[in-house]
C-alpha cells in the first residue's frame, strides 16, 4: 500500500470541469492531491518560458502550473483527454498534451490519465489505470470511483444552477448575457480579468454553456447542417443557437484565447447567427498581452450598447 503520494493537479485547462472528479477520486484512494494556486503572474511567466510562442495561452498556463507543481509533488498528473464523446474531439493541443509536457519539463515525473470516448477508452478505464499506476489495487478503486462520480454529479448541478461560480444573481431588469467560451477561458479569473464577476456586478444575468441542460444544447445543435467535431465548440454553438432561438439573450460575449483554432470558426458561425437574430455580440481575445484598460473599455461600451438597444 503506497503511503500518501503527493499528486500534482494543475489548475488549468479541464481542471475547471473535472476538479471534483479528480480531487475526490485521488483523495479517497489515499493519494494527496496538490492543486496549484489560482493563476497569477508568476505562473504565467513560467508558462511563457516553457512553451512555444504559437501555443495558445490556456496551454501555456497549463505548462506554467505544471512547472510550478513539479517541484512540489511526487508525481504530476497530466490529463490526456482526447475525446469526451462520440464523433467529437477536444482539440489537438489536448491530444498532444503529454508530449508537450515531456518536451517542456524533461525531468518531471508524470502520470497520464487517458480518456478517448471516440476510441473506446472510457473514464472508468482511465481511472482504473490511474489507480494501478499509483500502486492501488482492487477494492479501493471502486470506492474512490463512486465517490468521484458523486462529487462530479454534484458539481455539474452546481454549475448548471450557477451557484458554483458564486456570481451575484444580476438585477431583475438587467440584460441576459450569453457568455460563451471554453471553460478555462470563462472560469480562470486571471486570464479573463474576472469577466464574469464584472458582468454580474454591472447587473447582467450571465448564462454560460455549463448553465444549460444537455437537451438545450442538443436542440441548438440541430441547426447545424453538419455535426461539429469539437466538444467545446458544440457547447458554444448549441448554447448560442438555443438562446437566440428562444429569445433568451440580449447580447453575446464570446471570450476566446488569441489564435484559438476551433474558436476562429465557431466564433464566425456564432457571429453570423447573432447577426441573423439581430443580437449584439462582442468578441474578446485573451492573451498574455491583454491590457486591462482596453478590455474594460470594450466591455463598458458593449454594455452601453446593449442598454441603448433594449431601450
Amino acid at each position, binding site marked *: 500500500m503506497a503511503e500518501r503520494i503527493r499528486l500534482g493537479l494543475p489548475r488549468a485547462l479541464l481542471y475547471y470541469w473535472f476538479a471534483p472528479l479528480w480531487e475526490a477520486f485521488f483523495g479517497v484512494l489515499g493519494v494527496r492531491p496538490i492543486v496549484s494556486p489560482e493563476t497569477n503572474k508568476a505562473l504565467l511567466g513560467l508558462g511563457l518560458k516553457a*512553451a*512555444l510562442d*504559437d*501555443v495558445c495561452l490556456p496551454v501555456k498556463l497549463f505548462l506554467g502550473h505544471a512547472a510550478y507543481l513539479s517541484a512540489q509533488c511526487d508525481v504530476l498528473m497530466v490529463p*490526456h483527454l*482526447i475525446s469526451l464523446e462520440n*464523433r*467529437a*474531439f*477536444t*482539440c*489537438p*493541443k489536448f*491530444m*498532444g498534451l*503529454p*508530449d*508537450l509536457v515531456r*518536451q*517542456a519539463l524533461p525531468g518531471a515525473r508524470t502520470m497520464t490519465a487517458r480518456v478517448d470516448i471516440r476510441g473506446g477508452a472510457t473514464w472508468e478505464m482511465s481511472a482504473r489505470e490511474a489507480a494501478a499506476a499509483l500502486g492501488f489495487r482492487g477494492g479501493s478503486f471502486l470506492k474512490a470511483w463512486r465517490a468521484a462520480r458523486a462529487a462530479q454529479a454534484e458539481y455539474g448541478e452546481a454549475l448548471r444552477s450557477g451557484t458554483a461560480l458564486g456570481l451575484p444573481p444580476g438585477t431583475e431588469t438587467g440584460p441576459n448575457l450569453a457568455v460563451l467560451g471554453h471553460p478555462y477561458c470563462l472560469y480562470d479569473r486571471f486570464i479573463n480579468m474576472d469577466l464574469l464577476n464584472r458582468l454580474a456586478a454591472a447587473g447582467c444575468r450571465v448564462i454560460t454553456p455549463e448553465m444549460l441542460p444537455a437537451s438545450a444544447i442538443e436542440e441548438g445543435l440541430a441547426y*447545424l*447542417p*453538419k455535426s*461539429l*467535431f*469539437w466538444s467545446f465548440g458544440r457547447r458554444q454553438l448549441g448554447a448560442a443557437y438555443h438562446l437566440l432561438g428562444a429569445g433568451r439573450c440580449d447580447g453575446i460575449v464570446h471570450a476566446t484565447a*488569441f*489564435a*484559438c*483554432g*476551433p*474558436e*476562429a*470558426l465557431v*466564433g*464566425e*458561425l456564432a457571429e*453570423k447567427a447573432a447577426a441573423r437574430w439581430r443580437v449584439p455580440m462582442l468578441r474578446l481575445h485573451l492573451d498574455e498581452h491583454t491590457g486591462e484598460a482596453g478590455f474594460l473599455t470594450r466591455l463598458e461600451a458593449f454594455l452601453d450598447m446593449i442598454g441603448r438597444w433594449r431601450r
Partner: protein
Amino acid sequence: MKVTFPHMGTAHLVFTTLLADLGLEPVVPPPTSQRTLALGVKYAPEFACFPLKVNLGNYLEAFAAGAEAILMVGGVGPCRLGYYAEVEREILRGLGHDFEMIVLEPPKHGWGELRRALRRVLPRASLARIGRAVAFAYAKLAAIDAIERLVNRIRPRERNRGETTRIWRECQKILAPAATIQGLRAAENRCRELLAQIPVSPDPPPLRVALGGEIYMVLEPAVNFELERVLGESGAEVKREIYLSAWVRDQLLRSFVSRRWFERVRALARPYLANFVGGHGLESVAQAVDAAVNRLDGMIQVAPFTCMPEIIAQSVLPTVSRSLDLPVMTLVLDEHAGEAGVLTRVEAFLDLLARRRKGVPISEPVLLGR
C-alpha cells in the same frame, strides 16, 4: 452545372478532367495571386487558418468567372479542414452568392454521405461511370506527382539554372489535356523524355533537404514563395513526403498499404510525439526522424499560422533536432509573411547546412535555426 474548386498545386489539372468526365463544366479559378489573398483575407475570420482564406479568394474569383457550384472535401477533425466547407458556405451565402456546395466527406463513417452528395449533382450518372472517372483522376494525379518527384531530383543538378522549372511548366501543359489512359501514358513518357534531356552535373546535389509540414502550405507554391523551386535552384534536392496522390490514397481509399504506412509513421514519431494530433502533425515529426536517420542535411517545416497539429509538431521538433543532430527550421506563413524575409531565412538556413557539410562546428542556438 459550372463547378469550381480550390487551387492546391497541380490539383486543378486533375479536378478539371474529373469534372469534365462526370459531365460537369469545370471553372478553374484564376491562379492564386495577391488579389486572391486580398479577397480571401477580407472576408475570412482573422484567425482562420490561411488555406481557408485562400480558398475563399479562389471561390470569389471563380464566381466572377461564372461558377455556380463548389467542389470541396470534408473531414472528421480535429483539424479544421473538416469544417471549412461549412464556414465557407456561410460566408459566401452571407455575401449574397447563390451556389451549391458539394462536399466530399471521407467514408470513415460510411459511404452514405458521399453517395448523397454525388447524387445531388449527378442524378443520372451511374456508379460505374463515377468510379471510372475517379479512378482515372487518381491515375492522372499519380502520374503528375511522379513527374514532379523527378523534377525535384533533377533540379538541384541542372547546369542551366531555371531550365528544369521551365521544362516542368511544359510538362504540366502536356499532361493537362490527357483524358484517356493511353493519352496519359504517352504524355508521361513525353515528359520523362524532356526531363532526361536536361543537361545535369554528374555530381550528387550539394545538399538534401526534407520539406514537410501542413499539406496545403507544402503543395501550393503561390503561398509558400515557390519554396521548392528556390531550394532546388539553390542546389538542394528537396525530399518531400507529402503528395496529393498519396493523401487521396490514404484519406479516401484507406488501402492496406496506407494503414501499414501509417503504422510506420507512428513508430518513427513515437519517442517524440506519441499521439495522433490531427492534420499532418505526426507525419511532420516522423519525417524529421526519417530525414535524420537517412542523413539528410536538414528539414524545413512549413505551416500556416495557428495550425494546431503543426504547432504540436513544432513544439517537439527541437528535441528531435537535438537528439538526432538534424537542423530543423519552421516557417510559419500567412498573409502577413513577406517574401524577402522568408527567402533570407531560407538562404541563411542553407548556408548553415552547407557549412555543416564542410565540418565547421556550429553552436547550438544557431543549429536549431530559430
